Each structure stands twice: as C-alpha cells, then as structure tokens.
C-alpha cells in the first residue's frame, strides 16, 4: 500500500513577524524528501508578505521569501497569494498594478495572485491541508 500523500500548505503568518513561513518550509522540504507531493502553497492573510519581492534583510540573516522562491522553483510547485489579502497589504502583480493604477508591482517569482477558489480546490484534491499560522 502506498503511503505517498499530496499536500496543500496554507501559510497565514508573515515572515519575521512569525515563524510560520520557516516552519512551513521545513515541513515542505521534509515532505518532498519523504517522497510526498505538494499540490500547492497558498498564502493567506498576513502570509502574503512572503511573496514580496521588496524584502531586503541584512545579508547575514535568513531571507525567507528568497528561500521559498528557490524551493518552489526547484520543485515546480505552484504558489498562490490570495488576491483580497494581497491587495489589502500592498502586494500586487502587474495586472493588479494596472487595474488599480498603482505606482509599482512587487510580486515575487514564481508566486501568482488568485482567489480563494485555489484554496477550496486544495481542500478538495489534496490528501492533507496543513495550516501554518502566525499567532496563537
């Protein structure tokens, strides 16, 4: 009997304000190393800050957005930031920049912006949905 599982990871805690992105990355790496599959990473609420291309921490500190981007690209895992959460918090791609006539866009590659339907899809298709929250 196969024990391989598929996962959707939901991150709601922001980098540096919480340990959620770091813990989720450790889980994601362990899951892939264990032969499991990640269907999607979904950023919600404060978690959307992980997809900002404008984070620039000191060079001797961990760069969680960069580490997540590298992991997602290396493993070809889709990652989505919720559009409503993202717009509230100043995270936009070029399309939303144009739509709202904003002065810049700052969505980090390979993240995409989409709706909660992506999360609903994850709850229906993945074997497990894991949540990484920022607050107790």
């Amino acid at each position: 009997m196969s024990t391989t599982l598929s996962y959707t990871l939901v991150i709601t805690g922001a980098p540096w304000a919480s340990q959620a992105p770091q813990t989720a990355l450790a889980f994601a790496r362990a899951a892939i190393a264990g032969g499991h599959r990640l269907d999607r990473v979904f950023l919600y609420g404060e978690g959307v800050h992980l997809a900002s291309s404008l984070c620039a921490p000191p060079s001797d500190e961990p760069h969680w957005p960069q580490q997540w981007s590298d992991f997602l690209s290396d493993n070809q895992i889709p990652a989505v930031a919720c559009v409503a959460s993202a717009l509230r918090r100043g995270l936009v791609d070029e399309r939303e920049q144009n739509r709202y006539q904003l002065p810049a866009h700052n969505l980090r590659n390979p993240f995409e912006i989409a709706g909660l339907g992506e999360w609903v899809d994850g709850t229906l298709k993945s074997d497990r949905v894991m949540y990484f929250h920022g607050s107790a």
Partner: protein
Amino acid sequence: MTTLIVIDQAPYGSWAGREALDMVFSLAAFDQPAALLFTGVGVNWLRTAQSAKGVGQKTVEKNLSAAPLFGVEKIFAEQEACERFMPDTSSRLAGIDLVASVKNLMTQYDHVVFAG
C-alpha cells in the same frame, strides 16, 4: 467534504476573523458544506447592536447575518464562552446553535480550520 471554520478571536482587533469569514463564504460559493464555530473571546462576534463606528469599521454583525444567505449551513457557538461573555441571552444574535463540547463538534467535520 465538510468544513468547520473556527473563529477564536474577538472582532475588530485584526482582520483574521473577517478573512476567516471570507473562507467560509468561498466554500459555500463552491457548493461545499461549511459551518462556522465561535469559541472563547470569538463569541463576541455574536453580540447584537454592535457599533463599530468608534473604531472606523463596519460592524461584523451584517457580515454574519449574510452567512445563511450565502449557503453557510450552521453557525455554532461555544456555550460556556457565551455564558461567560454574554450572560444576557437577549444580547446574542438569533439562529446560533450552542455547543457544549467543541471537541465533539470538531470530530463531526472532515476539515477544521482556525482563523489565522
């Protein structure tokens, strides 16, 4: 697949509760069975006659009253927390199912999600 969204934070302090409400509305929009549970200080969402103008927000009471219209199947509240925070039953919204055991309720759902 059935989902229970749990709100355990008081309204107005952060947007986490409102965003949890968006999750339950989204499930309902995709015809997925979904319900809400308010626990601990989260039961303060269920007060009647809320006035949020003082904090520059819209009342969450209106959002909640729309839940049945959007297809949210049930709104539950932890009985003990309601008795603690709203001993006067007339100050609670109508149509709420009180639950004595949160644990037992959670076991009835495939998927339980806490507000972030």
